[in-house]
């Protein structure tokens, strides 16, 4: 038997969660150590995955397959594997989880439960990206839901219950439709199977009407996660109410599950439905980009602004996918990683200022750059990365997104480019209002970032510059898979 790398990456956090559960509530040190160790080992293994990953093949790698439920009526496998689309997302997940966990060390109340739910959440997210069996996929997908509900509902802000229930119900509604889609595909396949790779091969036998209906069922489930207009309103609320680390996870990883699903399921399994939906998808992408950016520009709350900027950035992914080209898919895949890193850093930094000032109102600050230069520098760097400044990771991926969509949707892409300047406008305005100008006397003794905060943000800052200068590190992993994806129906 081969070394079960993916299983270890996925279930070491589960072991950590169980360990945390067994520890007494008062021994905070031990809980911290157990949680961090589990997350760190998982990350270390995914770094191994990065180096061991074969960049020359588009096939699934590190495959593990065992029968799980082997009844006569249903056959479900424990079936894991990654390719150039999912492997980077796995690495992103373990990285962002570790960083978010470090950022959570400041949590005071009910820390044990927090760590438990956090690690369960990590298991779910990793499983979604690795599963090659639809049943398993659905199980992991739902696993992410419950911890998120508690993490927002217990450790969130003033409106936490409302935000948590809204997130939960909205996503659950989506996944019910997704379940319908899964069952529909299962019964259409002959012999019946949940094997996702096998299901990618049956599209020839599926009628147009079936594909459209199944497409809509899956799309509804995934679009809520992305989030695509008009299913996006849970996001700003959930972000604002969630504790900092959870916002990071939400933006960096959870949203990617939606884009990943659209690519893996809607595009690969239902090509006719996909083709039929394209004109709508591109329109939604443009709305996400321009409307999301405009909404962000009108916000006074820093966190809400970053949340809406996520909607804008995920719009680039959708636009790229709508381009149905290898370039576009590369752009979308790379944009997912970069958005995770950059927006993750932005949420961490907003958390830093909120912890100190207990406000996120952009108008309440002024002139902070003179007072907290390190914080100002990191925040400006992240903002510039987010607005797609060349030399930073976001530029390459945004550019690939536009380049991928342009040949097919010239006018739509040209309109979307407006999103770039609106993004620049609201980030620069935020920088100006918060950091520049005369120092607001209210913050005369604001302390700069502490070690814990630096440890969580600086690696991300380094990554966003490194991937911008040398995108090869990420793109080489994806290229072969993207070529094969784009050639799937040629």
């Amino acid at each position, binding site marked *: 038997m081969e070394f079960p790398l993916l299983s270890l990456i996925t279930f070491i956090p589960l072991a950590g969660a169980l360990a945390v559960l067994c520890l007494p509530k008062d021994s905070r040190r031990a809980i911290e150590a157990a949680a961090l160790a589990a997350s760190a080992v998982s990350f270390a293994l995914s770094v191994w995955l990065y180096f061991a990953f074969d960049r020359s093949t588009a096939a699934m790698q590190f495959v593990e397959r065992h029968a799980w439920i082997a009844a006569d009526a249903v056959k479900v496998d424990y079936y894991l594997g990654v390719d150039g689309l999912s492997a980077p997302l796995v690495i992103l997940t373990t990285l962002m989880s570790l960083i978010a966990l470090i950022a959570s060390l400041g949590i005071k109340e009910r820390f044990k439960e927090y760590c438990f739910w956090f690690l369960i959440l990590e298991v779910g997210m990793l499983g979604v990206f690795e599963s090659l069996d639809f049943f398993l996929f659905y199980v992991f997908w739902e696993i992410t839901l419950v911890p998120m509900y508690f993490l927002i509902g217990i450790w969130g802000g003033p409106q936490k219950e409302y935000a948590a229930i809204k997130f939960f119900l909205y996503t659950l509604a989506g996944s019910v439709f997704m379940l319908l889609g899964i069952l529909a595909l299962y019964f259409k396949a002959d012999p019946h199977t949940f094997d996702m790779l096998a299901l990618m091969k049956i599209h020839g036998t599926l009628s147009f009407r079936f594909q459209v209906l199944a497409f809509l069922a899956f799309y509804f489930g995934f679009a809520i996660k992305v989030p695509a207009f008009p299913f996006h309103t849970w996001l700003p609320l959930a972000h604002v109410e969630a504790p900092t680390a959870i916002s990071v996870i939400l933006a960096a990883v959870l949203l990617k599950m939606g884009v990943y699903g659209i690519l893996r399921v809607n595009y690969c399994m239902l090509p006719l439905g996909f083709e039929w939906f394209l004109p709508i998808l591109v329109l939604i992408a443009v709305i996400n980009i321009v409307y999301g950016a405009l909404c962000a520009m009108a916000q006074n709350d820093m966190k809400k602004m970053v949340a809406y900027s996520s909607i804008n950035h995920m719009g680039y992914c959708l636009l790229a996918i709508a381009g149905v080209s290898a370039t576009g898919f*590369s752009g979308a895949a790379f944009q997912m990683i970069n958005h995770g890193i950059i927006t993750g850093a932005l949420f961490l930094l907003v958390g830093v200022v909120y912890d100190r000032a207990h406000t996120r109102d952009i108008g309440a600050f002024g*002139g902070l750059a003179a007072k907290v230069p390190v914080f100002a520098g990191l925040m400006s760097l992240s903002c510039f990365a987010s607005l797609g400044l060349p030399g930073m990771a976001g530029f390459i991926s945004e550019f690939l997104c536009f380049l991928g969509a342009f040949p097919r949707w010239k006018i739509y892409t040209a309109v979307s480019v407006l999103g770039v300047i609106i993004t620049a406008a609201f980030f*620069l305005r935020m920088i*100006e209002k918060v950091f520049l*100008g*005369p*120092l607001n006397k209210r913050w005369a003794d604001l302390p700069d970032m502490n070690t814990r905060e630096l440890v969580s943000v600086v690696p991300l800052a380094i990554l966003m510059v490194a991937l911008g200068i040398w995108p090869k590190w990420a793109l080489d992993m994806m290229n072969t898979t*993207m*070529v094969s994806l*784009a050639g799937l129906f040629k």
Partner: protein
Amino acid sequence: MMIENVWLVPLLPLAASLVILFGGREREDSPMPFVGIAAMAASLYISLAVIFDAATGAAALPFEKEWLWYSFAANLGGQPSIFEMRAGVLIDGAAAVMLGVVCLVSLLVQIYSLGYMHGDRKFKRYFAYISFFTASMLGLVVSNNLIVVFACWELVGVSSYLLIGFWFEKEAPPYAAKKAFITTKLGDLGFFLALLLIFTYAGSYNLVRLKETVEMGYLPPMVLTLIGLGLLCGAAGKSAQAPLFIWLPDAMEGPTPVSALIHAATMVAAGIYLVARCYFFFLASPIAMETVAWAGLITAFLAGSMALVPYDIKRVLAFSTVSQLGFMMCALGVGGYTAGLFHLTTHAFFKALLFLGAGSVIHAVHTNDMRSMGGLSKRMPWTFLTMTVGCLALAGIPPFAGFFSKDQILEKVFEHSPVMFAVLVFTACLTAFYTFRMLFLTFWGDGRDHHRVDHAEESGAVMTVPLMILAALSLVSGWALEHGHAFASFVGSGGAAGHAAEAAGHAAAAGHAINPMVLAAGVTAGACFFIALAYSLYAGRDFSRAQRLKSLFQPVFDLLEKRYGFDAFFLGLVDLADRIAVLCRWVDIEVIDKVFVDGWGLLCRVAAEISHLFDALFVDQAVDGCGYVSRDIAGRGLRSLIARGQVQEYMLYLAVGVSLFAILK
């Protein structure tokens, strides 16, 4: 061979900027600036060696060298495959000249800044930014890949943002920095779209390959025109062409040496250089060429007229830069490739000189307002002398540098269109007027604000020596480079666009040409006349005559002071965007979230209530009803009817029942 190492030219200052930024602590006597100066000197050395090698024929131009940067999956020719993005250097005559100019000006600015910025709280950081700024510009100049050009282009934008807003503790600089960034970014949208078009239709970003593809005629004319216009948009943003010039006057909020750098070598030169670098696109599209010419012409005139009214010494210079950039753009548009680049080169020297001179003045009197100056010639002789050289060069008086390059442009423009020529000649006369208006207001007569002027002292050698070097260059560079067509033949040699450009120019020349001697004499006479006019209006102790003239043409002055309303227009645009944004926020919260999402929730709850009511009223009542029926009606009724305690009766019922079953079976 030095040209092999030309890639070091942008990387040395880049490395220097990182060393300065992260190395050592912020101190007044920090040695870090010397790291930047040393790196710049090394870059200058390499650039000059490259120019020397190329001029003597030791190195062949164009020189190209590239490396693999990254690869991505792309659909080329409809087939998905892996595309290799290569990046490297491409040195032609124009690039070599630009390298020399940028390095030289940047070096002088940095040395000058040692004096100017002395004692600033962020002394070290300033030098880090300047090095980074120069590195970005040099990267833009050498790169052979349009994506890298665009990347450096944006980095130039960011560094200008950092430098314009350098004194961010004040109110105005951050605003000016943001304005500059957003305005140039607006132009960059066009550049960005052009890049998308280029890759979609030509499948490459390599300048050499693109030139081949375009010259083979593989691209449809419509696409070429769109690409040209897109590139022009980008260039208009960076090079402050109409109507995107609104950021440049505000950019004066930065430290004055930065203004010198922006206006002479980096940033605003980038736009002109981009058009020159991508000249083959423009040559392939007459519409794009014509648009470039008109954009330049309009900018030259508008900015030239706006420079007539301000009293802020730096704003006069800022508008004059815009106007001169218009000259260059116009030259490129009419096919005067070398003329445009020639003016770019000479202008870099005398504009850097003028700004550094203005900085020296501001350093001495602590104000930008020329109404508080006057009579400074005695107190600051070196500054006065060098600035006079700069003014003569800018006004185009022979034998100073500006005369030669402006003359070449006018010649080219006359061949193209006499109307444009007339406008440009008039603008050249305006140039002479506002340049000397500034000189007279600053240095002539007696000090108007004794408190300031009497305490003014000549700046130290660290500031005046760069002025003298630049003055020497402004004096000789025009004549020396014009001599024997040295500049033309160098820039044309192996130029990415050179030969074809000259060919286009010559084709037009068949129509009409002007006698160079007549042109030179006429323009010089015109300039002298306007200088005399400026003298009569502004050289006196007060300038009451100018005031009277102003009241006579009040509406014109108002229009000029309002900058033709362009600022108001763009501010209105921003305001509109803000309103739309607020509307979007409202729609998002009140309509999409409250009505659609929460509406669904409400609908579900109403449905739940209804089904609860239905449950309680009908289903449950029906159950209870059944109970009632079976207990109270059926039970009691039947019992009273048939259950009367007669065993025989029961037996009878039983027998009937059994026989019924038997029959049914």
